[in-house]
């Protein structure tokens, strides 16, 4: 197999694989499952927020635990 053929084959595989990605836009009114308590990292949001705040202050790493957001798109 020549180098050009290998290159073409690789590009075709990459192009084809890009078409089967699972990205999808979840609309604001479709976020009920994302807002479900079982989708949260911690069962106690307030305690987790406090612990995160404490850790970020001690570590000098504000934002290091990610930003807040329940996923419901609520303002």
């Amino acid at each position: 197999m020549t180098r050009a053929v290998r290159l073409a084959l690789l590009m075709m595989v990459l192009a084809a694989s890009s078409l089967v990605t699972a990205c999808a836009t979840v609309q604001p009114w479709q976020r009920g499952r994302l807002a479900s308590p079982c989708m949260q990292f911690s069962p106690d949001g307030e305690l987790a927020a406090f612990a995160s705040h404490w850790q970020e202050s001690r570590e000098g790493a504000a934002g290091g635990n990610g930003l807040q957001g329940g996923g419901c798109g609520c303002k």
Partner: protein
Amino acid sequence: MTPALRWPTALVCCLGCLASGVAPRLARASEAVVPLVTPALVLPDASGTSVSLASFRGKVVLVDIWASWCAPCKAAFPAYDALYREYRGRGLDVLAINVDEQRKAATAFLDGRDHQVHVLFDPKGLAPTGFKLKGMPTSYLIDRKGVTRFAHEGFNAKVLAQYRREIEQLLEETP
């Protein structure tokens, strides 16, 4: 990977990302103002009776799109119910359109709640799609001619005060 393959590979990866949804998101993010539209909606109420938005022509209609999993929606619900009780004698109607996928989630919230607004069920999201909703909760004020005049995203006391002024304004207008 040989150096000759790096750039073509990077190019293909970039094109793949663009094709798989990044580009549409960027395009949506650049939309500054969403034009107000009034969709033709026919949705069932709790008894299964179909209710048409057009049947409220001649009245001022507040359309509230809510879900049981959305905390500010639940905070807004009794406030809109109070608005309805206050202004219904002058021609205001309130349609609370629920977009929960499972109706039982909505009825669990509504059970035991002494509400008087019209609750309609829209598990397929026809109403938010029609109104081009951008965030939950969003509510819309439709005038007596059936034209959507105002929209408010989110809910707080400021929105409520603004709504009172707008409702008063629309109620003063003749059909």
